[in-house]
């Protein structure tokens, strides 16, 4: 067992998969340049030395192009891990992801597969509105795509390996503040998601969520960074006698609905925390699903703790107001009692 940060765990996963299967390769901007950081967040650091520039493929600044190449390569039998430098740029690749990758298997009656992975960092980190979005909701809404969002090093490695082996297109969202990179790529305000990561082979199955903390008074569901906000809030709430159960779905599509529903049936209360604008967001979908399936077990309305419907601010003080905080989660939970 080794202590690894999320970035290191992802790197290890890529390395292992590329060693195991010669069809696996990485494609993205600045992921293998000599003397570079190994992508914007150090995930691919050192991999071009090990695997060469044909398998750690640098591209020009062309998100649509690199995604299209990944789609085509996957259709032709390779297993690409595409890298989007910032999640915000995924919009540029939307047609390739939503219209091509997502629909190819369906439209071809299963004869054409697109076994690609697209990795993208999300989260607000004082870089301004166009470098701060959490746009998981755009992709959970596209049938044909699997969407995963690991929040720990253990899950990052296990889920990325599962994603590479999955024959469906998988989008993996990573949070910039959870990478745990050191040195020049240290993020202000980062949270340590470093943890024990087995060196032996293991997988985290896609579609399985995790209960991060058990409780009986309220269920809090979060993703990526907001899992940690929820855990922080839970600790404070415990001092006031409210025991919160914190759920990290890990996979957003296909969602581990039963895990969430079972928890709500136990606690009777639900708060969903997301770093994303509230309207049309992921939390609303979870809330609707629970209201439909577990209405008679609810003792209070379902609350969403989300970012307001504005672009992410640049000023640090405003950004701190924008991103859901522990205090907001605590307030939301208390309003249910």
């Amino acid at each position, binding site marked *: 067992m080794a202590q690894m940060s999320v970035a290191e765990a992802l790197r290890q996963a890529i390395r292992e998969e590329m060693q195991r299967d010669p069809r696996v390769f990485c494609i993205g901007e600045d992921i293998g340049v000599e003397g570079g950081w190994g992508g914007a967040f150090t995930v691919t650091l050192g991999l071009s030395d090990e695997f060469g520039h044909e398998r750690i493929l640098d591209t020009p600044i062309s998100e649509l192009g690199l995604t299209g190449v990944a789609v085509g390569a996957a259709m032709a039998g390779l297993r690409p891990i595409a890298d989007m430098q910032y999640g915000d740029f995924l919009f540029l690749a939307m047609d390739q992801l939503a219209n091509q990758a997502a629909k190819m298997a369906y439209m071809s009656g299963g004869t054409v597969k697109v076994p690609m992975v697209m990795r993208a960092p999300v989260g607000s980190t004082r870089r301004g509105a166009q470098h701060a979005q959490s746009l998981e909701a755009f992709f959970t809404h596209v049938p044909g795509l699997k969407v995963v969002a690991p929040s720990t090093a253990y899950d990052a490695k296990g889920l990325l390996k599962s994603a590479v082996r999955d024959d469906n297109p998988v989008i993996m969202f990573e949070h910039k503040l959870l990478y745990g990179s050191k040195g020049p790529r240290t993020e202000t305000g980062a949270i340590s998601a470093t943890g024990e990561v087995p060196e032996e082979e293991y997988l985290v199955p896609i579609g399985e969520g995790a209960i991060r903390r058990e409780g009986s008074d309220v269920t809090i569901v979060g993703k990526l960074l907001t899992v940690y906000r929820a855990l922080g809030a839970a600790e404070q709430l415990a001092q006031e006698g409210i025991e919160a159960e914190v759920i990290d779905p890990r996979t957003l599509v296909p969602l581990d609905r039963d895990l969430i529903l079972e928890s709500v*049936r136990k606690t*009777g209360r639900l708060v969903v925390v997301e770093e994303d604008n509230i309207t049309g967001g992921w939390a609303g979908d979870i809330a609707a699903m629970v209201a439909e399936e577990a209405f008679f*077990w*609810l*003792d*209070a309305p379902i609350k969403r703790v989300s970012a307001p419907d504005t672009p992410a601010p640049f000023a640090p003080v405003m950004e701190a107001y924008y991103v859901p905080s522990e205090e907001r989660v605590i307030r939301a939970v208390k*309003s249910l*009692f």
Partner: protein
Amino acid sequence: MAIEVLVPPLGQTVDTVTLVTWYHDEGDEVSKGSPLFAIETDKATLDVEAPASGILRQLAAQPGEEVRVLSAVAFISEPGETVIISALSPDLVESLPSDASSPAPASQREEDGDGKGRRLFISPRARRLAEGHNVPLTALPASGPEGAVVERDVRAYLEAEGAAPVVAAGSSITPVARRMAEEGGLDWRRLTGSGPGGRVTREDVRRALEVAPSAGETVPVAGEVNEVAETVPLRSVRAVIAERMARSVTDTARVTLTAQADATALVALRQRLAQDEVRVSYNDLFMYILGRALREHPQLNASLDEDTIKAWRRIHIGLAVDSDRGLLVPVVRDVDSKGLSQLAEETRAVVGRALTGKSSPDELTGGTFTLTNLGMYGIDAFTPIINLPECAILGVGRIARQPVAIGDRVVVRHMVWLSLSFDHRLVDGGPAAYFLQRVVQLVEGPHLLMT
């Protein structure tokens, strides 16, 4: 604005006096200046005059009671005014008799608005728990967010009542299943539910009732328990029928009027039409007649929606059809605006689709009246169940030759029994009878349809 009736001050040293007697009763009309009650100190007895004219209300002290000087012992209000209890001074509130004529807040709440009471805010989880234990919802305190009754309120109530150990909030029963269980004398809490989350379903109760004796019967000796020959789970159409029939019978105030009509002219009419290559069934003829009669009697073409009676502008009649899947009621729309041939064609089409399972969902809803004919089974009169949300249904029996009296002679005529079930909640016997009378009239004299 109600006027307080105060105990007058009687000198500087007097704090309390004794109320000796009231000269009027609660609810009496009193006039200003007339003696209202008498008080007594250790020195003297004194009459106190009414400070205003009006209705005497809320006598707050009994003869012989000590009352504080300058406290209010009653109110005088204008007729029709309601006096609020909190307006009384705190001194007196404690001394109010427990069966005070003042309305308790709870019942006052019921008189609010249209008499239906305030909306009850209770979480689904709490409601389920309360209903499962027959806890009256209005008796519960509300400690939850937004003033709602929540689970802990119900639990607290149940524990205070010393009830049996509270059933876990996870168990529940569907309303229909609970009714079945209660009717069968079964304690559903002992059942394991097969529904989502352990919910006890119709099927669970039905199975349990099959092996358990219903209340009132003696328990059979071991070895005499009957075996189930065949189980047919309630699914799709059957389940829907079961639910709707049960609901209709419990929700409606069903009355069935029966009348016999001389259908000889109707039979002749149908034969005459057939001779001219116009093929219509008796159902088509009854539909046509109903279209006319309902146009003339719109009260029978209505629905009760909670507390509003909605009289429908258009007449859509459903025809009960026995298909392989069970009872279906395809609907023919705007019956009164169609000629007999058109009706016959449309009825044939919708019935055909119903029998082959090809009805569109629209075809099976939206009816304002239903026609059900059991004549082909040799049935005469029966008590059809109203097809909610309609308010009435006409059952037609067989058309058979019967001996009847015309004048003093006995002749053989084609007679038919008509059974009209109607919902007495919105339709009274008189109007329903008039309607049936008109139907009979049109059956007996179809030429009247020309007028």
